[in-house]
């Protein structure tokens, strides 16, 4: 179907995640569809509770117990849900590197950081002790730690938050993954450090020719750093398309609201975007129609009753689910929109 060069790194088709609760099964994610091509970067944005982390965890196979994932997730053509958990974990560990939100708790305080960086390499790639060590030290200097040789033997508490996140990035790179996922990787950091780490991620992605998923509640974070953007609302994809296109020409009302409420870089994680009035949807009690309807200023009767289908914009890759989308802007003179840098 695809040639080696264009086969997607990752694709999700009709992916739905359910969690049992006292009030019956909760649909935490509904009908997620996207593909990520080699060397491309995808941004996943949405408010706190939109399901960004769940999406990442369901893909990685590390979702909390009790989460049922349906549909199809393919990593380089491999159907992940068809694999035995152990094989899946090994494949993911080998092919995907992940950096989590909180560098303070993501490193084991009892284990030397050198070991934490190299361990996946030893296990998945059979690196010898010496190879692993030299590779870990190389990565430490690559992510910008001074004195990597000495750092190798240090424990996490001897580093600052930004340094810890750099160490996490180094650990994510040990198996030379094809995909790097950063789930709010900078939200816990100081503003200046945030930018440094984001720039580092972007550089790494370009230099190592990887694909990347950048998860954030902050549109500003993904703006100049991703090729495509996926907007999640209440576990649904409400808009998906080339980043520049979505920024220039948002069609879904929620995306518009997000854009006009674009938070400053220094906003702490998990803060609700106060400028969008109303509450995020209650997953236990989903409205029949558009999930954004209770908060949408443009909602009409049909919005409350019928779930809007995905429709395509003029740009062939731009999709959104809204009954009354914003008007399409006239296309700029040159056909291909340059990526915002």
């Amino acid at each position, binding site marked *: 179907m695809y040639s080696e060069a264009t086969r997607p790194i990752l694709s999700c088709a009709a992916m739905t995640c359910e969690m049992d609760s006292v009030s019956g099964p909760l649909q935490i994610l509904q009908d997620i569809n996207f593909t990520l091509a080699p060397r491309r970067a995808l941004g996943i944005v949405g408010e706190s509770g939109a399901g960004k982390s769940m999406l990442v965890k369901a893909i990685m196979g590390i979702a909390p117990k009790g989460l049922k994932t349906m549909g199809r997730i393919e990593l380089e053509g491999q159907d992940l849900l068809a694999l035995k958990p152990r094989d899946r*974990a090994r494949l993911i560990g080998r092919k995907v590197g992940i950096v989590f939100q909180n560098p303070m708790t993501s490193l084991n305080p*009892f284990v030397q950081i050198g070991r934490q960086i190299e361990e996946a390499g030893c296990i998945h790639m059979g690196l010898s002790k010496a190879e692993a060590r030299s590779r870990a030290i190389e990565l430490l200097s690559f992510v910008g730690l001074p004195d990597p040789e000495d750092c190798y033997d240090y424990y996490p*508490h001897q580093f600052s938050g930004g340094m810890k996140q750099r160490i996490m990035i180094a650990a994510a790179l040990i198996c030379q993954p094809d995909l790097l996922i950063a789930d709010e990787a900078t939200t816990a950091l100081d503003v200046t450090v945030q930018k440094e780490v984001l720039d580092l991620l972007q550089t790494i992605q370009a230099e190592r020719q990887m694909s990347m998923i950048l998860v954030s509640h902050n549109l500003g974070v993904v703006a100049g750093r991703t090729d495509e953007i996926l907007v999640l609302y209440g576990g649904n994809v409400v808009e998906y398309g080339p980043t520049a296109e979505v920024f220039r020409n948002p069609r879904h009302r929620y995306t518009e609201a997000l854009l006009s409420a674009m938070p400053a870089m220094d906003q702490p994680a998990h803060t609700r975007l106060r400028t969008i009035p109303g509450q995020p949807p209650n997953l236990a009690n989903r409205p029949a129609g558009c999930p954004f309807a209770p908060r949408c200023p443009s909602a009409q009767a049909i919005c409350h009753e019928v779930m809007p289908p995905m429709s395509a914009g003029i740009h062939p890759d731009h999709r959104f689910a809204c009954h009354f989308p914003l008007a399409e802007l006239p296309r700029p003179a040159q056909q291909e929109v340059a990526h915002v840098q």
Partner: protein
Amino acid sequence: MLNSAMPYFRAISTRLITGVLVFLLVTFSATALSSLAPGSAAQLILGDYATPEQIAALNAQYGYDLPVWQRYLSWLGDLLRGDLGVTLFSQQPILGVVLERAAVTFEIAFLAMAVSLIGIPIAMYTASHPNKLGDKVMRSISTVLLAVPTFVIVVLFSYLFAMVLRWFPATGWAKFTENPVANLWYVALPVLCLSMHQTAYLYRVARNEFVTTLQEDYIAVARAKGLPLGYILFHHALRPAMPQILTVMGLSLTYMLAGSFVVESYFAVPGIGWTILSAVKSHDIPLVQAILSLTVVIFVIVFMLVDLGYALIDPRVKVS
């Protein structure tokens, strides 16, 4: 090198000073207690029918008519010289008797502790498969074991293993130095009985510790790295759980030493618990005092080792 070892020296010396103070307090209390008993200490030892001459002789030998502080100082002097005199009745050197008996109790306590370590891997397994069958079964077993007092375990086990199955002897003793195999054979039942509570207790604490640790973010990271469960348990979960485990082991050891008389008197094992029991019964004050002192020393050493263990386990604790 010296710099990095410095905090340990300081920590050890603080604990040593505390230990010495506790030691002085306890041994002084032991001396003082013997003069609080009704009548004179010599009277107490020799009984109601002792003649004044006998009492005078005992006082002359042991100084029971002297004030407490004077007796205590002379006892300390004896201790420093390494000669605590002889036991009142069998007239054997006290130090030799105490050390020999203590070795027996130690053997049992350490073996029991070694047996109880089996609780750790079981805890690892059940904590990583919570609320599965194995977890529930182990939880029930440990609850039952903890609810049953040691003397009941002793009676049940000796009935089962010594009378019915006849695997181990019910009573008796052989010195390890004379016949190691027979020694292990005799020691098996006391060790088993003594270890039951410790195993159950250690299992419970370790299981809960592992369950908590397995919810840490760094475990999620390790899982995302695709590391095998066994690797995660041993390389990422064991060390964070170790301080708690170490605390329990330290408490267990002191508990076993303090509670050894139950098992020792039932199985007629010539250990320190059995000895202090008979020494108290026969009012052998010098022997009681020697055993108390040794116990304090051991407790201080155990707690010091536990503290040191914390510092070795947790890189963040650079010793208070």
